[in-house]
């Protein structure tokens, strides 16, 4: 009864091909999974040797016999490999062959369980191809140094860009600690460890700074270090992408230098202008003083002359004969002309603020 239930269970399984071979390797049972997987009806396959599932290259190398032999000696033989369907197409099979013995230990035959892993195999291959493409892509990039560090900071991959940028061949640098790219002052400051620490805590660390080539020369680098974790969140290492920005840096330096130079020249020129301006101001003040003094010196005697004549002419000191008065008035007209000329000559202004000169005198 139990054996019957077991037979039904096996017969109904469609995801596994499960069948028995006799001690010589001939098929003696067949289930729904076997039929689905391999394409044979039970009556087509019963009694045939199980080697009909193997591709030609396996037959030539004697693989079927070897697997039975191993099941006999080890009790069990496991294999992954290509197998054939009835229509000649291949599938990737996981095969386990187990020797079946009775209680006395006599061989009664073999059980064979086969699973179709074609889809998994295809997915694996696609993944591998993608990884390979990615590896080739990274390997071929020459403008970026792209490489991996292990969790301790040791270099585990190296690409063409890294070789070009840093000057090391892969075999020279693999396994070394990435701190060898840092300048002594950065090493003293503990910068490499700090950058890994930041990548660990922040996920990413970005920096611009001087780095060393193999020959000891420096280049201005833009560096991004990223922590790489697996799906479970365990640290697998760090990726490090470095770009050489020396030319940009030099261009910036050059602009900064030119700016500094320009600013200095503007400053010098401004100082010079201020000096000249002060000189001009002083000259202007001296001119004003001179004009003021000249005006005063010329106009004071003119005042005395004019008013003296005017008072005589106006008769303040007694009657003046008409012909004398005519001469006096002629003199007045000419004094006025002379005063007018003096005013024009000195170009003095009618209205001027007295505040400043007053403050200066006191």
């Amino acid at each position: 009864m139990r054996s019957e239930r077991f037979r039904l269970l096996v017969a109904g399984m469609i995801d596994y091909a499960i069948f028995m071979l006799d001690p010589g390797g001939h098929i003696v049972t067949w289930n729904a999974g076997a039929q689905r997987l391999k394409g044979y009806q039970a009556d087509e396959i019963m009694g045939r040797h199980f080697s009909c599932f193997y591709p030609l290259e396996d037959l030539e190398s004697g693989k079927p016999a070897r697997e039975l032999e191993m099941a006999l000696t080890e009790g069990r033989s496991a294999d992954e490999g290509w197998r054939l369907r009835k229509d000649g197409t291949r599938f990737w099979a996981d095969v386990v062959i187990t020797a079946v013995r009775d209680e006395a230990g006599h061989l009664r035959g073999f059980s064979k369980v086969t699973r179709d892993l074609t889809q998994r195999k295809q997915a694996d291959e696609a993944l591998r191809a993608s990884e390979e493409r990615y590896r080739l892509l990274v390997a071929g990039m020459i403008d970026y140094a792209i490489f991996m560090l292990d969790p301790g900071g040791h270099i585990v991959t190296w690409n063409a860009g890294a070789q070009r940028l840093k000057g090391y061949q892969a075999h020279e640098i693999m396994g070394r600690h990435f701190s060898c790219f840092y300048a002594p002052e950065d090493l003293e400051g503990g910068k490499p460890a700090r950058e890994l620490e930041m990548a660990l805590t922040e996920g990413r660390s970005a920096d611009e700074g001087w780095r060393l080539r193999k020959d000891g020369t420096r280049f201005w680098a833009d560096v991004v270090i990223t922590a790489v974790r697996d799906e479970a969140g365990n640290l697998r290492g760090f990726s490090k992408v470095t770009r050489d920005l020396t030319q940009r840096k030099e261009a910036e330096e050059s602009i900064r230098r030119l700016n500094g130079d320009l600013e200095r020249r503007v400053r010098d020129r401004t100082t010079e202008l201020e000096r000249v301006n002060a000189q001009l101001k002083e000259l202007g003040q001296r001119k004003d003083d001179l004009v003021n003094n000249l005006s005063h010196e010329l106009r004071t005697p003119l005042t005395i002359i004019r008013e003296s004549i005017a008072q005589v002419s106006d008769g303040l000191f007694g009657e003046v004969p008409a012909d004398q008065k005519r001469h006096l008035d002629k003199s007045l007209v000419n004094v006025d002309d002379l005063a007018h000329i003096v005013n024009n000559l000195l170009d003095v202004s009618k209205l001027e603020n007295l505040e400043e000169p007053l403050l200066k005198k006191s």
Partner: protein
Amino acid sequence: MKTLLVVDDKADIVELVKNRLQANNYQVIVASDGREGIKKAQQYKPDLIVMDIMMPNYSGGEAVKVLKSDVATKHIPVLFLSAAASSVDDGEEPGRVCVDGQFFPAIGKPFKPEKLLFEIKKLVGD
């Protein structure tokens, strides 16, 4: 009779101006520099001060500053009479001189007597 104070360091000018003003019925007090001008103004409280500008011992501007800050003299009108470039008058109108932000009329030297008398009359009345 109005009393006028004439302040000028040139004795000839003081004499001429005094003579001219007296001939026009003004009483005249004179001073020969800014400091003496301040003293006489405080002492006599004249109706007007005719003030030169460029003088030793307090210029005319400095003297006016002092007088305008003294309650006893701040009301006395001032007419500048100056040969300084800053006080040239032109045509009919008198020039203007600024002291401490305040403007005062100014007659330039050499002056026409009728113009001087006209401005004085404007400031002191008849």
